[in-house]
């Protein structure tokens, strides 16, 4: 199934792009997406357990994904 991955700030810089599509197997979790992203470009500069949001809600690494989900890897936030 296809998952949209969003990258921001330093994570987008490391991977070299702000958005990508990934093919993952049915039953894949957030963890699988992180592993695939860390294999791209300088993706290994990302932490092994970044904060993640699925469809704009914070989610754990065990969160199981569905077709069309939007997975965002969230660098340490620094608003304010």
């Amino acid at each position, binding site marked *: 199934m296809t998952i949209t991955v*969003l990258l*921001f*700030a*330093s994570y987008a*810089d*490391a991977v070299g792009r702000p958005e990508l599509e990934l093919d993952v197997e049915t039953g894949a979790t957030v963890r699988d997406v992180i592993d695939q992203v860390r294999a791209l470009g300088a993706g*290994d*500069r990302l*932490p*092994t*357990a*970044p*904060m993640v*949001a699925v469809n*704009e*809600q*914070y989610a754990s690494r065990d969160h199981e994904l569905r077709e069309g989900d939007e997975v*965002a890897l*969230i*660098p*340490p*936030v*620094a*608003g*304010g």
Partner: protein
Amino acid sequence: MHSAIIDTPIDVPKILERVRGNANGATVLFVGTVREVNDGRDVTGIEYTAYRSMAERELASIVEEAAALAHSNDIAVEHRLGELSVGECSVAVAAAHPHRGRAFDAARYVIEELKRRVPIWKREQYVDGTREWVPATSGHTELVDAGDER
């Protein structure tokens, strides 16, 4: 209640006006501005970016939580994105209530949760021309919750 992520200068008097009410005896305002020095480095400006749709959603949730906590709907927050110069306002929070304890609690809650949860990032521009994401990412460092206190 009001929350917004905006691209234009924050109108602080308007934020205060949004929480005004004759039942309120106390209003607390927090204003965050770009500092000229951070961690010992001379800053000329900051670029704020966001995961905008999620940031809007989180900010709205935070204001609702603060309203429930403080028993007041007179709470407003705006965060600005884009390039800001030293001294410019990046965020403003206002909370009003009949009593001051609740107004302080609500304003504090909003800014603390905003800094903890809202997906906004800043890149500082330094006098020497370099730029860096804050907090700086380096190598394989495990990046944990920012928790910087400004």
